[in-house]
């Protein structure tokens, strides 16, 4: 077993009286595409920002983010800036918010090349054109002078990926990179990420609310709910046999083509208010399989098969398919 590239352990984030992240941990292996799935407010996007120290100063972050033998949470802002963008790249959901609207795309890439690699002048421009070409922007050299508003949504996301890749990071953090895009463009961007992962031998952490996106792209998945990891493991196994009642509920609430026009099976209620988290399992109030023990204390993550963990007290019955459908 080789050491993971990135290891996030016991991450906790407090913002004022709120605790949007209670306990999140996962490892990312070299060359792996890891999915983090959860609904809005689950803490999945916040996790990526916490890793890179991008949270506002009002937030307090605890735990460990181990990267290349050091804890990123303990680094000075200056040292962290050397890792961010250079060793770990990031792309966001809204490229229009992340790109500078008054700078040509080419300049935004060469800026990154100068800051991280010390490349300047013609060499930087040539490299920038190579990067745009690599992410599938046609006539890359001519497009260096284009402004973000001259690009379509898909092209902007490609340009963002080019900027993130400028310093050849070993890890790319992607926060809902395709959520704002049309389905055929989403498909193109996901295939691009997979191709780049292979070509550049980097790892990708993909945060999304769309389980279909995870199923089509990721090797492993971490399911988060109310700021906690509920289960994690290989994608195919988790989707075939979830080991957490929440995952089971999510999968069952999706439309099934064989049951068109019939009632879906939603999860009752809505996610917990972050100011009033329950004492036990955060999913227990909505869970059809909850037993008294679920309400008492937060169940810890426990092994649930090879390379799998789950925080569900009924994981064994779920994976054995011993629970009657609700």
């Amino acid at each position, binding site marked *: 077993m080789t050491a993971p590239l990135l290891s996030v352990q016991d991450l906790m984030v407090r913002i004022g009286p709120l605790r949007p992240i209670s306990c999140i941990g996962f490892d990312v292996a070299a060359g792996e595409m890891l999915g983090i799935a959860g609904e809005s407010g689950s803490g999945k996007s916040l996790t990526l920002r916490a890793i890179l120290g991008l949270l506002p100063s009002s937030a307090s972050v605890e735990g460990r983010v181990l990267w290349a033998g050091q804890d990123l949470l303990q680094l000075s802002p200056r040292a962290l800036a050397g890792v961010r963008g250079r060793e770990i790249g990031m792309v966001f959901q809204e490229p229009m918010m992340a790109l500078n609207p008054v700078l040509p795309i080419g300049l935004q890439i060469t800026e990154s090349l100068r800051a991280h690699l010390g490349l300047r002048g013609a060499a930087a421009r040539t490299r920038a054109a190579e990067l745009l070409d690599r992410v599938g922007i046609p006539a890359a050299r001519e497009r260096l002078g284009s402004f973000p508003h001259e690009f379509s949504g898909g092209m902007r996301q490609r340009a963002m990926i080019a900027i993130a890749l400028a310093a050849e990071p070993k890890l790319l953090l992607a926060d809902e990179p395709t959520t704002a895009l049309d389905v055929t463009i989403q498909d193109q961007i996901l295939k691009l990420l997979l191709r780049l992962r292979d070509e550049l031998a980097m790892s990708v952490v993909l945060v999304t609310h769309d389980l279909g996106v995870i199923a089509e792209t990721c090797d492993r998945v971490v399911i988060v709910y109310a700021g906690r990891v509920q289960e994690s493991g290989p994608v195919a196994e988790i989707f075939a046999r979830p080991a957490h009642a929440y995952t089971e*509920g999510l999968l069952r609430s999706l439309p099934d083509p064989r049951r068109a026009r019939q009632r879906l099976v*939603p999860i009752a209620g809505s996610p917990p208010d972050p100011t009033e988290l329950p004492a036990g399992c955060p999913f227990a109030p909505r869970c059809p399989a909850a037993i008294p023990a679920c309400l008492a204390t937060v169940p810890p993550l426990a092994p649930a098969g090879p390379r799998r963990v789950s925080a569900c007290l009924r994981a064994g019955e779920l994976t054995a398919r011993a629970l009657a459908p609700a």
Partner: protein
Amino acid sequence: MNAFAATKLLAAENLTRAFPIRHGLAALLSGGHSPAIRALNGVSFSIGAGETLAVVGESGCGKSTLARALVRLIALDAGRIIFDGEEVGALAGAALRRYHRRAQLVFQDPYSSLNPRMTVGETLAEALTVHRMVSPAGRAARVAELLGEVGLPAVAAARLPHALSGGQRQRVALARALSVRPEILIADEIVSALDVSVQAQIVNLLIDLQERLGLAILFISHDLRIVRHIAHRVIVMYLGRIVESGPADAIFAEPMHPYTAALLRAVPQIGAGRSKAIALGGELQSPLDLPSGCAFHPRCPHAMPRCRTERPELRPIASGRLAACHLSG
């Protein structure tokens, strides 16, 4: 056969709308014709009472313009809408108000379509008052009844929108639309902003409401998984035109237009096996500068020389199915 054809509630014929773009004063003075975005380009369809007709397509295909045109929020350049035997464009005064009661539009983002300063009860009561649906004395009871219909507790009447979750707000928006007993609901991406578990709740609610009230639903969505679940029939749009229409089961089982086929391939699926091939290359053409012939030909993997010069008409291919492709039929 289409079981709803006998009770045609709304028919759209050749709906056409372009939005001119003005490029500065100089262009205006020189008198050159200004370019225009052709958002709707000869769109025709009909929907029966109690039927769910889905309109799918990517951004810029004209589906939201269609929703707004149907309730006359946007005027048409050409074409007409026939609702229950009357031409909607000719309605005025009381008759138009009556149409606006019978055809209700619900938007994607209930947070921006609900008044943030009005309680849920006030919002619902306002709709009832405007359309004189109940006597002032019966209003509170009707509000409670409406909340029950959309699965909200009666105490929700005292809440402000910000105190509700996204799913609850969408229930309020539906309750407001239902308060005036409409016959057709035009739902523009109403589940798109919701989390999956909540999405399923709203989808069930729509199916329930339709069965109970016999509503026709024009369900506009980019989410093909939900469309497949909810729709009886489907219209696929590309750059302002219908490229394919027909019964949902048939379209999803065997799409006839290459664009429909690509859309279906692009939907991320669980347990479907992965493909490294891209479902559809290229991007949407600019609606300002529509391609000659078939507007889809620059992206179409099957394009032939004829597709560049001759626009395929939307024509019957099989029972209840239309497609606009030189290759089909």
